[in-house]
């Protein structure tokens, strides 16, 4: 009798153990399937978001070219179609993820600008009130509170420019890479904006433009400017690189002012009319500066076409005198607003505002921060902005765990 009971107990124990083991394994399988299904939803949402961003212009379609409020999110260039993004809509994205990244101008005025920088002060400063923020975009996409996303739009080609010393005249090296490898055989369309002081009679600095086309057989090439001495010149340099349908932009600048900040800040005042504020940096240590502003339209073959603009020269001061001037660029033409300036000590500097982000190869990051989320789905597309090749990457994650 006792033997039968023991036999029964052992059998039941082994059975329960086997059942628990089996249930545990099944449970793991089901959990894995559910997690897969949830991740799949996130991945599908990433596809959905990148398609909306890249092949839908938004509503109204020309929202980037106006100050209008946005009803539907999308970044496609409605005039180009396909995978072409609007250079203007991108300027209206609030890329700063927190207020500390915003630029307040004038200081302590409560007027904030979003900062999409190329480098060293060159970039787009848009009024925050006219910019689309992440929460509003998420609401338009119908994912507010359920999914987070981030859009990174970066140039396909990596074009590095550096100055080469020791020639007695200005020499710039252009190094082109794609996917980490040197890109040889490209054609370079380059433009040098050299800042000069004219004479004692004329207080305004002069911008002299040198343009040319150069081959780049090995992926790295030196461009010589024999008319420009290399004794600390002030200049900006842009180069448009093309090969087999892929195009990139490189950019380099050098100032003679002994400061890391620019003395003049260009701020966008109005997208609709293309109004730009050319402002003194309002730093107490910065002297009064005279400036000369020129707008160049970027043509489809990467040439520059100069356009007359209002208030193209002036004197700006932070204390007594005028702190800013307003000018207007052709709102529907992409290009570069080049501003050169001169201090009473004959120090020179220059700053560029790209009207349309593609013209200076500016990168954009818009959206939330995926750090800390266990599963982040990404989608990649090739896009173009003003015929400049970019890659758009959307990262998406679930906010519900």
């Amino acid at each position, binding site marked *: 009798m006792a033997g*039968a009971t023991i*036999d029964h107990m052992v*059998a*039941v124990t*082994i*059975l329960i153990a*086997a*059942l628990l083991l*089996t249930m545990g*394994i*099944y449970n793991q*399988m089901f959990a*894995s399937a559910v997690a*897969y299904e*949830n*991740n*799949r939803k*996130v*991945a599908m949402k*990433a*596809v959905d978001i990148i*398609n909306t961003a*890249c092949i839908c212009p938004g509503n109204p*379609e*020309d929202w980037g070219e106006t100050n209008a409020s946005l009803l539907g999110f999308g970044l496609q260039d*409605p005039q180009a179609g*396909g995978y*072409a993004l609007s250079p203007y809509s991108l300027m209206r994205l609030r890329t700063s993820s927190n207020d500390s990244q915003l630029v307040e101008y004038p200081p302590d005025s409560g007027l904030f600008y979003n900062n999409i920088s190329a480098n060293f002060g060159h970039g787009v400063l848009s009024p925050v009130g006219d910019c689309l923020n992440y929460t509003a975009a998420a609401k338009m996409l119908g994912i507010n509170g359920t999914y987070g996303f981030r859009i990174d739009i970066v140039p*396909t*080609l990596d074009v590095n420019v550096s100055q080469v010393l020791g020639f007695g005249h200005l020499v710039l090296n252009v190094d082109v*890479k*794609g*996917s*980490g490898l040197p*890109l*040889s*055989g490209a054609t370079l369309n380059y433009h040098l904006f050299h800042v000069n002081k004219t004479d004692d009679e004329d207080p305004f600095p002069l911008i002299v433009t040198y343009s040319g086309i150069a081959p780049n057989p090995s992926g790295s090439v030196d461009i010589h400017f024999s008319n420009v001495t290399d004794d600390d010149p002030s200049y900006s340099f842009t180069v448009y690189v093309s*090969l*087999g*349908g*892929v195009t990139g932009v490189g950019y380099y600048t050098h100032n003679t002012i002994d400061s890391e900040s620019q003395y003049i800040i260009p701020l966008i005042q109005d997208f609709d009319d293309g109004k730009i504020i050319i402002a003194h940096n309002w730093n107490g240590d910065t002297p009064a500066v005279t400036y000369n502003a020129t707008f160049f*339209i970027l043509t*489809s073959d990467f040439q520059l076409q100069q*356009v*007359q603009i*209002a208030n193209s020269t002036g004197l700006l001061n932070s204390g007594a005198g005028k702190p800013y001037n307003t000018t207007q660029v*052709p709102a*529907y*033409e992409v290009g570069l607003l080049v501003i050169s300036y001169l201090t009473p000590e004959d120090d020179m500097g220059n700053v560029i505002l790209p009207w349309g982000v593609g013209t200076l190869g500016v990168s954009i990051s818009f959206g939330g921060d995926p750090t800390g989320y266990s*599963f982040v*789905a*990404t*989608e*990649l*597309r*090739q*896009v*173009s902005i003003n*015929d400049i*090749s970019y890659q758009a990457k959307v990262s998406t994650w679930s906010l519900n765990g």
Partner: protein
Amino acid sequence: MRTVEVLFVIIILLGALIITIQFAVLPSPQQAFGTNLRELSQSTLETLDGKGILTETVFKDPNDTAWGNLQKALSASLPPNVVYNLSVYDISTSSGGVINYHLAKSISDAGFGVDSEAASLLATSPNVTFTITPEKVGEKTGENNTLYILNCNDANGWWIVGYSAQTLALDLYNLLSPYFQTTVLVNSTYELGQLLNRTLLTGGDGEKVEDAVVINTFGESVPIPSGYYTTVGYDPDATYKYAKYSWYLGQRTNQYNWTWVSIVGYPFYYVTNTDFFKYDHNGWGIYGMKMIYQAGVNAFLQGLSNQPYTYNETKITERPGVVYLSSEALDLCNYYGVYPAPYQTSDRALQSSILSTYNLVATEIFDRSPEYPNCIPAATYRHTGGGALTAIGLTRTPDIRVSVLALLMYYRPAVYKSEFGASCTSRVVTLQLGQQGGT
């Protein structure tokens, strides 16, 4: 004994478990996505062909250096872990009507794993020759209309940002001259004066002042000849004193049965003559120009409808914003091969009330905005007694293809199309992508 039974049960349970695991292979949750290679491939093909370079390359000789450039561009565009194979197929049709695909060229950077995806693009050779024989405007009616394009070297344009009147004149010449028996460039305001006085400019065969089309390439400004027209066109009592010149233009348009074309913005807003108005500017720093404001178009319409001149600077435009080409206009885009953007921004749409005020019939090319049902974004306004005004009330910068479309829509010349060399002139480009190591 029971232990043995339980062992049987356990064997059954584990057997079921093993079989389930064997057949229900679930992927890891981390494998829920891989980059959507098909869409990446599609976007790569489209962006590479953004300026037509891909299409140009795939029709080149297989040994041409352009293929090497395309391969470099592909390698530079795609992420390092993505491998590709780009294949180009010739499309040909056999005598039995069967479509055949032959591999013409293939480039790739590595072999594929198990998974890959592809997208394709149909390319048409730039060497395909299409010939179009257009009917000449007025050929059927015997009017044989002459096309005059204002190309005056002593005038300045406004609202033609990014262009000059001369480049627009050249483009219009290229687009429209096939549809006209005679096309004449009016190269100075003096020649415009001659034209207004019914003097032939070339004296050549076929030139005819009557029934002509006159295109003003200067945007919102209109060239004015000095001399007679700066005298009679001057109204000393008016705020904007040269509005009366527009009245003369309207009268001549009616008298000679012209179609006057304003390519952008507010018609007749300025008069321009760089010699006569050497010291005047339009208020925006453009010299050689004088404002006639909103009175210009009112005066023109008075002249067009044979009404006496009365100075009237009442605004007759609105800003409906984005407007869309009508379905009829879209059909004609395909018919004539002229493709302006299907939606445009209208900033200077004329009010429809002018139709009754001036006895006009409008041939409209855009659908009216629902918010502005009484505004016409762009149309040709025909006066019942002769003469017409084509007013493209869109914002700058001008897209002259809209003006071309408006004129073609108004005159409706037939086109006779033929195609040469169409065999083997289409190629399919497929781009196959795979992730190294599979997805």
